[in-house]
């Protein structure tokens, strides 16, 4: 698990030493830090004269103040609402005028902002980010309409989508007290309570160069980036951060089950989520074992769930599994299946549990384990084709407390997963640490 920045560390960063020289930390990755504590990672790619800038902050939905869920995500929106020098919504307009694209996203553990732009415009994109990192101008005339925008976003992504609604309820039930159970987008009635003062407090406590990781991928050299980053971000002073709270993850003593009936659901769904170890907190090889197991169990149409439920038993039209292990605290393992017409969710669940039960006893066949590993390892080669995917992979890892080595060594770690490692991963899935949901079409009673 990532150690949160302590007060002492923050004080040390406030003293502003000169930036370190870029240090090669992988085949094609270079790292250094600015004097104000900003971490920088450079990934050269000279295929096109463009660059991707991503600025990751170690703040996310878990840092929402009590009673104000959705604050981190709302704040991500506010970062596009202007500073004194770059007022209103001119941030995105300036990026566009310079041929660039920009956007941002928020998760429980982090918030990230990015621009993709011609390489000679990278200094401009850096100056703009450096400006809003310290000079944001929050006013009621911006906070009030943006709150409405976020509520529309919530209606679009969650309230209008029965599967998203069920997933939100299941997440809330899975985490007894950890804020991973709160939706990143926030509960609507709490989003409505966010105001200018609470937004300002959030900014003051979390947005600072010493809480940020800058990732630059593209047609640049590490030395160029060092000069540009120092020019743009070096002036931003480090700030004392609010310490990140550490949340307990008390053991669950029983499975939670829910049945959600919705008139806007037209197709039933069986879904189960398990709390499992993440990359950041798992023991060596545990997360990679879960990753391989998820691929074998439900990664594609050659996987066990699809083969058995969809093709052989003809109980489902679709079935799959996935592992999400890139979290500071617990990770999550998900299984789902969609019944064929006339098949009950109970029958479907029984069949899923049979497959899971076999996985805890029998070792996977070599040919299947090799296929799963081939696909996982190839995904890293495919990722190299995209500046954005590469920058995201490293940025996300660093933001949750992993290292560049963790990213670079991942293919070798996956290659070394044994059949026994997969079986152990299957045995890790405990119904007590899980929430099971049935989504059923129909009128709410």
């Amino acid at each position, binding site marked *: 698990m990532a150690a949160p920045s302590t007060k002492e560390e923050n004080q040390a960063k406030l003293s502003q030493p000169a930036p370190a020289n870029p240090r090669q930390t992988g085949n094609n990755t270079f790292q250094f830090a600015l004097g104000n504590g900003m971490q920088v990672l450079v990934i050269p790619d000279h295929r096109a004269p463009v660059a991707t800038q991503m600025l990751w902050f170690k703040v996310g939905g878990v840092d929402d103040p009590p009673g104000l869920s959705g604050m981190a995500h709302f704040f991500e929106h506010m970062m596009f609402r202007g500073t004194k020098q770059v007022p209103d919504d001119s941030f995105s307009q300036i990026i566009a005028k310079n041929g660039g694209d920009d956007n941002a996203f928020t998760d429980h553990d982090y918030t990230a902002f990015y621009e993709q732009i011609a390489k000679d*415009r990278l200094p401009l994109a850096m100056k703009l980010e450096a400006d809003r990192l310290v000079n944001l101008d929050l006013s009621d005339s911006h906070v009030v309409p943006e709150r409405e925008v976020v509520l529309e976003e919530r209606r679009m992504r969650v309230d209008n989508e029965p599967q998203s609604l069920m997933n939100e309820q299941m997440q809330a039930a899975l985490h007894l007290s950890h804020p991973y159970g709160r939706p990143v987008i926030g509960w609507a009635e709490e989003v409505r309570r966010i105001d200018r003062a609470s937004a300002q407090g959030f900014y003051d406590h979390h947005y600072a160069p010493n809480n940020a990781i800058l990732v630059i991928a593209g047609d640049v050299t590490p030395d160029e980036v060092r000069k540009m980053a120092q020019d743009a971000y070096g002036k931003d002073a480090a700030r004392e951060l609010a310490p990140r709270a550490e949340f307990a993850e008390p053991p669950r003593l029983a499975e939670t089950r829910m049945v959600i009936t919705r008139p806007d659901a037209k197709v039933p769904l069986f879904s189960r989520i398990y709390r499992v170890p993440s990359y950041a907190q798992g023991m060596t090889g545990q997360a990679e074992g879960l990753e391989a197991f998820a691929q074998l169990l439900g990664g594609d149409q050659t996987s066990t769930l699809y083969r058995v439920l969809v093709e052989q038993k003809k109980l489902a039209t679709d079935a799959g599994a996935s592992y999400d292990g890139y979290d500071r605290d617990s990770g999550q393992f998900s299984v789902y299946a969609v019944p064929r017409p006339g098949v009950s969710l109970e029958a479907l669940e029984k069949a899923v549990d049979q497959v899971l039960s076999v996985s805890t006893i029998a070792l996977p066949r070599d040919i299947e384990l090799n296929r799963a590993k081939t696909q996982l390892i190839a995904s890293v080669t495919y990722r190299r*084709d995209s500046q954005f995917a590469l920058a995201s992979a490293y940025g996300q890892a660093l933001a949750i407390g992993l290292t560049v080595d963790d990213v670079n060594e991942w293919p070798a770690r996956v290659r070394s997963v044994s059949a026994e490692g997969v079986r152990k991963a299957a045995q890790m899935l405990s119904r007590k640490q899980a929430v099971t949901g049935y989504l059923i079409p129909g009128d709410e009673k």
Partner: protein
Amino acid sequence: MKRFLQAAALSLLAAVTPARAANIQNIDLGKDAEVWFAEDHTVPVIAFNISLPAGSAYDPAGKAGLASFAASMIDEGAGGLDSKAFHEALANRAISFSARAERDYMVISISTLKENAPEAMHLLQLALTRPRFEADALTRVRAQITQALQQADAEPPRVASRTFMRDFFGDHAYAHPVDGEMASISSVSAGDLRNFSRTHWTKYGLKVSVAGDITAPVLAKLLGDTFLPVSGAVPPALPNVGRLGAPGVHVVPLPVPQPSVYFGLPGIMRQDPDFLPGYVANYVVGGGGFSSRLMGEVRVKRGLTYGISTSLTSYNKASVMVGAVATRADAVHQTVQVVKDTLADFAANGPTQQELDDAKTYLTGSFPLAFASNSGTAAQLGTFQRQNLDVGYVARRNSLIQAVTLADVKRVAKRLFDPARLTVVIGGSPGGAAAPRPSAPLPPGKPTTPAGPAAQAPGVPTQSVMPAPKPADKPLAGPVTTPSAAKKP
């Protein structure tokens, strides 16, 4: 700082064509096919984007959705490989292989590690020439499509977009949903699929774009061998389009908190000299994210929506300017009125010189972003090919956009954005007070029609037949709905 920023913007007017765009090779595959190739050896990956004249516009009467159904069967067994064996052949080598139907074309996307390119092309050849269409796979895929159609029935953007296309195109083959209807899908037989594949999975009119780690001679040999046995049958021509549009407001009631609105007008054909001025005009009105007038009026000023956008799409036989927005039920009338007022103002006055300059710097300056990856390059080249452009267009494109004048855009704005001709479809039940100024009277609600995955603007159809997205999907994308991955004309 602001002064510096503006100076920087001006110098971008001299934006150069990206090195890659200037270096697209033509590879000979016979007179009826076209192959474009961007060579790059940085990453050992090759991306293919392949278009065949097999889109939904060729669906026979009563068989709406046949082309899309056939595309969904592309990896479900061919030659000596049944469905299971075909999927395993792909997975064992981590080959990504999928097909989707658009209105004019079936588009096949393949990504492969360099060393597996021969196997990927072998599987493509089998899929195109010896598809099995076995009963078991057919039943399974039909059930998947049927469930997707059922769920789409309840989703406002899908209901609105499907109804919009039906109302806008009337009797034409572009009107019916790419995914078809429950009744037509249930009537599709293996014989229908076999006949369709024989007539339409042909190299007559074939377009192939390739980017990545291979050389031209090796690629030429590989593609020559791959397509040698593919039929050269000439598919039937599509009918011409009559009158476009159904002006007025059409409501499909749905019990949802946030209705979706699709609105549109007759567009401009790709070969019309006014297309690029029209494209620039569309960028200013609704194509440019936060730079667009509609985003400014509807989202930034009024907080009425998370996203609003418009696009100008030219099919082979017709063109449409279509926009989409979603808002809470009691704000639908107000939002539609703001859209109409914004379009009316733009039609009357056109853009400012500053808006035109800004549009041109974005459209030319962002062009290299499309060529930053092999998969992006192949997809962008495929888009150009489906617009029937020549390979030299890639190098000319930025100077053509630079040449668009204020007079051009003002003229085209008048032609394009006439709110009196606007077709508006609301998926959902608008409520609350009517707009401050009278809008078109709302006709009685039409019966709900089955909806499908054509949730996005036409021209960017989707083809997912999987009814259930995987439940875990945590990161929330930021403030702009439309990702920049949208292809550029």
